[in-house]
């Protein structure tokens, strides 16, 4: 605010109109019982709030709202006087309001002009503001609003595009998984074949029957099926390991179903691409990222019908960089992306348990309670558990389970609990069991693996989730995780047969030939194939299409004269002709060129996608190198 102490210059200034009215009101002695100067004349007191509001306010201020009066006072930097702080007593009564401004005194009427509104727009001189008619303020505000809306729209478009890309990727992963499955079947056939050759070779050697070796006749399988090795004659270690690896790949992991769900959901939701016809919008100008930005991007919901889009944060910051690292790492997309790693991990720790010599448990066999209303599932689950040397008891519903626990709360070491059951559901049963057995691990078995559901399970005292349909390996994983203290020797597990399984808690360095080989192979395949597939698909999405760059503003309601204005930042284009007070986003110059803005964006997206399977730089290069050329001009 510029210093402006010349009283004459302020004569015509109505900036202190309110203050003048206030002073005038206090000059009227008839109000003395309601509102008056304090004894010292350095503050004024509203003695009777109600009367003041009803009679005096309307007369002098044309309203009868005490709160607005107080707000107005605050705007002029009046402050309420707190009496107990001053003297420990209230000289004007409990309900009195005393206000003070250092310049507002009964004996200084000439000083009124020095009482001004606190500056709402510090860059603007008070005069300019007063000259600003309210309508113009509304114009400025609505411009700001429109700009914000525009930004939200742009963000939505970006979101659509991301969703679109994700959809493509999910489909790609799903189809690749099918391929991998087929491949492993083929491998299985090949191993069988090799096995037979191996056996045949060995048999012929052992029996010195060299003439028997008529290679690869068409009747090979039929004649040799029975000729499998006896106990003394171990098959080749490589073949055995290969088979173990294949067996270890359990495609029914949670990741698979999540992906399946995604791909189904995507197909049902229809394509949002109609509205996603514009390119990345250069609004990344704000410094202050907002956490919700990432969190509110719904993954599967139809963005157009998703009400959460309407609660996009439009607070003090009118701009937001959705690709700021704070957001990009908090986007729920990471869930499907990280799953392949989980799969790889799971496959390393899932041995065919029966191959192990003896029990995996130390002294006592774990006592497991399986709570499941479905007979078939209960039988399979029991079988899986007894197969890994657990003692299993079953309950057909939550009530039975609670009964068993009430009868003997110490009996079981772990509980597998179905969720949806007659009589008493698994969550309620867990809550009840927790009253008698606070420590026992309770594992939810469910096909509801949505985040919210899982949170509910945990809230009610469950410890973990086993996705349905469950697998033996899944169960073994849970057992090893929650009953690690009962294991014979976590480190020793699986070492005996050189198979890739290690203890769950600590997946030690696997045998290089097997686990390592596997862990690398499928992602490698994925990447290589995707390099081709993804690029083709990318070209269909509008993100990369250079032709759309010129129409980036078309879906907006704002009239943009030229995309060139971007170089100065989007916001400045919006309000370029506006007042100096509307400085919203000063950061535009950081990203001077449009094309430069697209490139980093896509790079960062690329980084995220690489998480799919491999982070080795050379692979990244292979995958994303060519496609970048297609969309960066």
């Amino acid at each position: 605010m510029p210093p402006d102490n010349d009283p004459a210059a302020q004569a015509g200034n109505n900036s202190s109109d309110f203050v003048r009215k206030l002073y005038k009101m206090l000059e009227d002695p008839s109000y003395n019982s309601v509102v008056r100067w304090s004894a010292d004349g350095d503050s004024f007191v509203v003695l009777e709030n109600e009367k003041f509001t009803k009679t005096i306010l309307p007369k002098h201020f044309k309203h009868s709202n005490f709160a607005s009066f107080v707000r107005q006072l605050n705007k002029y930097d009046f402050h309420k006087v707190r009496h107990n702080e001053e003297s420990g007593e209230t000289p004007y009564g409990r309900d009195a309001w005393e206000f003070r401004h250092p310049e507002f005194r009964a004996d200084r009427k000439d000083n009124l002009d020095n009482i001004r509104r606190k500056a709402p727009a510090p860059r603007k001189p008070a005069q300019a503001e007063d000259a600003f008619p309210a309508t113009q303020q509304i114009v400025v505000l609505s411009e700001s609003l429109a700009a914000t809306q525009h930004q939200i729209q742009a963000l939505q478009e970006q979101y659509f595009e991301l969703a679109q890309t994700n959809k493509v990727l999910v489909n790609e992963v799903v189809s690749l998984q099918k391929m991998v499955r087929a491949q492993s079947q083929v491998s299985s056939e090949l191993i069988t074949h090799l096995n037979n050759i191996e056996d045949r070779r060995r048999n012929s050697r052992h029996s010195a029957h060299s003439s028997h070796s008529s290679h690869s006749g068409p009747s090979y399988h039929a004649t040799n099926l029975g000729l499998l090795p006896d106990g003394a004659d171990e098959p080749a270690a490589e073949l055995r390991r290969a088979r173990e690896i294949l067996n270890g790949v359990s495609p029914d992991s949670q990741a698979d179903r999540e992906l399946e769900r995604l791909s189904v959901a995507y197909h049902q939701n229809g394509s949002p691409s109609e509205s996603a016809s514009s390119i990345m919008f250069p609004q990344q100008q704000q410094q202050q990222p907002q956490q919700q930005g990432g969190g509110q991007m719904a993954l599967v919901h139809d963005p157009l019908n998703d009400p959460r889009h309407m609660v996009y944060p439009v607070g003090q910051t009118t701009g937001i960089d959705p690709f700021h690292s704070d957001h990009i790492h908090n986007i729920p997309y990471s869930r499907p992306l990280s799953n392949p790693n989980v799969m790889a991990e799971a496959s390393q720790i899932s041995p065919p348990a029966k191959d192990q010599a003896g029990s995996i448990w130390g002294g006592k066999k774990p006592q497991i309670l399986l709570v499941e209303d479905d007979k078939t599932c209960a039988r399979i689950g029991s079988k899986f558990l007894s197969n890994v040397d657990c003692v299993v008891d079953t309950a057909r519903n939550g009530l039975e389970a609670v009964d068993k626990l009430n009868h003997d709360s110490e009996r079981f070491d772990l509980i597998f609990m179905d969720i949806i059951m007659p009589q008493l559901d698994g969550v309620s049963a867990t809550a009840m069991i927790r009253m008698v057995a606070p420590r026992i691990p309770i594992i939810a078995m469910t096909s509801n693996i949505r985040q919210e559901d899982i949170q509910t399970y945990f809230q009610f005292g469950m410890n973990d989730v086993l996705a349905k349909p469950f697998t033996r390996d899944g169960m073994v994983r849970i057992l090893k995780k929650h009953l690690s203290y009962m294991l014979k020797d976590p480190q020793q597990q699986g070492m005996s047969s050189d198979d890739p399984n290690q203890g769950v808690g600590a997946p030690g360095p696997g045998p290089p030939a097997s686990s390592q080989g596997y862990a690398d192979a499928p992602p490698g395949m994925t990447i290589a194939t995707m390099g081709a597939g993804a690029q083709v698909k990318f070209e269909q999405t509008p993100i990369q299409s250079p032709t759309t760059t010129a129409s980036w503003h078309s879906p907006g309601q704002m009239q943009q004269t030229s995309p060139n204005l971007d170089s100065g930042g989007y916001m400045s284009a919006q309000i370029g002709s506006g007042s100096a007070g509307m400085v919203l986003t000063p950061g535009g110059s950081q990203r001077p060129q449009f094309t430069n803005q697209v490139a980093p964006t896509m790079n960062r997206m690329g980084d995220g996608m690489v998480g799919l399977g491999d982070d080795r730089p050379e692979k990244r290069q292979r995958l994303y190198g060519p496609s970048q050329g297609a969309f960066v001009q």
Partner: protein
Amino acid sequence: MAYTYDRDDEDTLKMAAADFGDHVDTATFSQILEMDEDSHDFSMPLVLNFFEQAEETFEKMDLAVASKDLPELSRLGHFLKGSSATLGFTKIKDSCQIIQQYGSNLNVDGSAEPDEAVCLKKITAALEEVKVDMEALEKKMKKFFESD
């Protein structure tokens, strides 16, 4: 326990011979077969039992359709879905999922389907389909186990 993948190989070949196609997820079903110790002493009664269970469930579903009892249909769908999924009977599982969803007035993608008539129609169709699939599956399973 002796290394027994010879059995698994046999099963793999048998599965191929039984032509499960997309009826059965062989990976899931294989791990059931792996639980067999002597012949198919575990898996066969399990599967036969499942077919009985399915038969009963279908009867209940028919009744529920007749009385337009959507919640019951959802429950039954969920019930049969669990066992069929655990056995790897993919087609059955998918139909059960449809029945469960529409029984809860939901489309397959989880969006609301308030029209009860539409739901019943979809359920009826899925029920017809799952019955046909079950019959086909039963034949295949019989073939698979009979070759023991």
